[in-house]
């Protein structure tokens, strides 16, 4: 009786060890990549926020809390809150546009579904800069939209270089990231649940509010995260469509590192940005687990 037990135990340890080796083989490269190219540089940059600035950029390694105190300065706080607002509005607009789109795609026949999904992802195959420049061509003073409106006797309007344009650019760029998780959630939803709701006397709007929306909420949260995160820290789109002023945190951080040469403060801003995102991600993870 004991012999098989002992050999069983050996097999067990051996298989556990080989499983560990297997995991290392599969996870190792990704892990190394993350540590060397993301975690170490990020930790280095974030550590700058605890030191004083050098005169021509760089860091003087003397401990200082000034940078973190400066974050509370209304000028910078306004920019952080403004970025938050722009990112939230962009996320909301993307959700309002993305939900019906995802819903329709999920209810298409299989063949059309694939075509529609490819069409959603297609813009990603073009460079982001080119796509954002296209908006300038469309919206500028003598641009396509204004000349079309001109023929109707309207305009010209100043579309470019304000927060609205930045929202348009963000929504346009990240809408696919909203549609895809929503599609996945809606597609998974048993259509019989909506039928059951109707059968029990619920009008279509009630069915949406009481059944469809709550059951696709994890998809909604994921989609919102996917749009909000890159929007909040974005600097390319506000740079091009927002008129070059530091209207979002991303631009401010870039300016601190490259123009003002205040690396420690730039790093403190980065820390603030990361903190906000981490809190939001934790909230999302928590609510997804509850749902």
């Amino acid at each position, binding site marked *: 009786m004991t012999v098989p037990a002992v050999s069983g135990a050996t097999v067990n340890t051996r298989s556990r060890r080989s499983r560990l080796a297997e995991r290392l083989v599969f996870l190792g490269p990704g892990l190394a990549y993350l540590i060397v190219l993301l975690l170490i540089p990020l930790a280095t940059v974030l550590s700058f926020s605890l030191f004083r600035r050098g005169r021509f950029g760089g860091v003087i390694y003397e401990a200082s809390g000034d940078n973190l105190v400066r974050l509370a300065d209304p000028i910078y706080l306004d920019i952080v809150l403004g970025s938050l607002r722009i990112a939230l509005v962009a996320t909301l607009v993307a959700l309002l546009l993305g939900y019906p789109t995802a819903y329709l795609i999920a209810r298409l026949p299989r063949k059309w579904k694939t075509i529609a999904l490819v069409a959603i992802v297609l813009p990603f195959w073009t460079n982001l800069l080119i796509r954002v420049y296209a908006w300038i061509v469309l919206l500028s003073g003598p641009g396509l939209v204004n000349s079309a409106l001109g023929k109707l006797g309207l305009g010209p309007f100043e579309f470019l270089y304000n927060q609205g344009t930045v929202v348009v650019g963000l929504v346009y760029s990240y809408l696919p990231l909203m549609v895809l998780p929503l599609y996945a959630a809606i597609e998974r939803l048993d259509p*019989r*649940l909506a*039928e059951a*709701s109707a*059968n*029990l006397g619920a009008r279509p709007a009630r069915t949406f509010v*009481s059944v469809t929306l709550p059951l696709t909420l994890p998809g909604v949260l994921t989609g919102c995260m996917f749009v909000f995160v890159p929007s909040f820290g974005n600097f390319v789109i506000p740079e091009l469509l927002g008129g070059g002023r530091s209207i979002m945190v991303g631009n401010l951080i870039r300016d601190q590192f490259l123009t003002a040469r205040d690396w420690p403060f730039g790093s403190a801003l980065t820390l603030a940005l990361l903190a906000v995102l981490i809190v939001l991600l934790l909230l999302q993870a928590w609510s997804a687990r509850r749902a």
Partner: protein
Amino acid sequence: MLQITDVSRRFGDVPALSGVSLEIRQGEFFALLGPSGCGKTTLLRILAGFEEPDAGTVTLDGADLLTQAAHRRPVNLMFQSYALFPHMTVAKNVAYGLERERLPKAEIRERVAEVLEKVGLTETAGRRPDRLSGGQRQRVALARAIVKRPRLLLLDEPLSALDKKVRAEMQLELKRLQHEVGITFVVVTHDQEEAMSLADRIAVLNAGRVEQVDAPVTLYERPATPFVAGFVGANNLFRGTACTGGLSCEGLGVLAGPDGLEEGASALLAVRPERVVLAESGAERDSAGDDADAAEGVEAQDGSGDAVEAVQDTLEGAEVVAEGQGTSPEANAPDVNNAPSGAIEGAGALRGRVADVSFYGGVSHVSVLVPGRDGVVLVATQGATRVQVGSSVTLTWAAEDGVLIPQ
């Protein structure tokens, strides 16, 4: 009460329903029975308003049902998959339909509690559906559907997801509930036993058409069409032409059956396995041996294990059809004609050899190979049988036990 007239529905080129007409009475337990793909679920979805017919009318208490939106119909459906809302508790699921009627909260609470007690789920009211067993979910789905006191309750394969023992329990419970609440039930099922045990009347559907509408006993004892004879219960089917005294079947002679069809008309004789009387023909050992050879001859001439397959089919309760025409043993094997025929002259009895005996507890099934017939004749006997594989037997039945179905 519910009047379905000439309802048709096609999906692309495939007709799901063609000219279905049914009348369902107040307070009735009605079953739509048929194999998968016969259109029964489509009909149910039309009644619930999830599907529209291409043609035909449906009226409930004289009012047109088809022009009403799904959420306005006084018809509730219990889904095959139950379709319980996974994010709501049992009580919330059941209350959902009442909340849509904007009833006072107190009344909703009262009626939910009442119906949960009726289905025995009072303790689970606060649980989510994923914390329930299959039988409990089924009862939540039922409670959710009856709490609205609909004019008509539709049940789509209500018991198919349950294991055998729970299913038997739930069958009784369904019947009791229907009696208690007095709602008209229409149940869709492919399970004939379920339909037989539950329903007051059954409509057998096949390929989008109604084959027969009758009470379970009538359906079983007097099948009106060849499909019903083969689909409802196990049956021995003989193909041939009607004649005085029964059916003239090529290779088997005249088989006992009722009169009533025009002589010479092509017909099917159906004899239930439990109606066949089996007698061991021990006295005729010698000729029985010949019979056995002949039977083997038939099997060999067919060139395959057809007979064996037929036995297996029979065990699964499928129909056994003797091919009187086409690939008749005569056409393939003239020498079989010279072998002693399985039919006993004049008596309308068959002689054959036992190919298989299966004991099911309450009944035994004996498969008998009869020379001149492809496949076997199935005999059901009470309890265990003493007949053994290989022994020679004589099969008889009373003329009135056969059903002659025109083809």
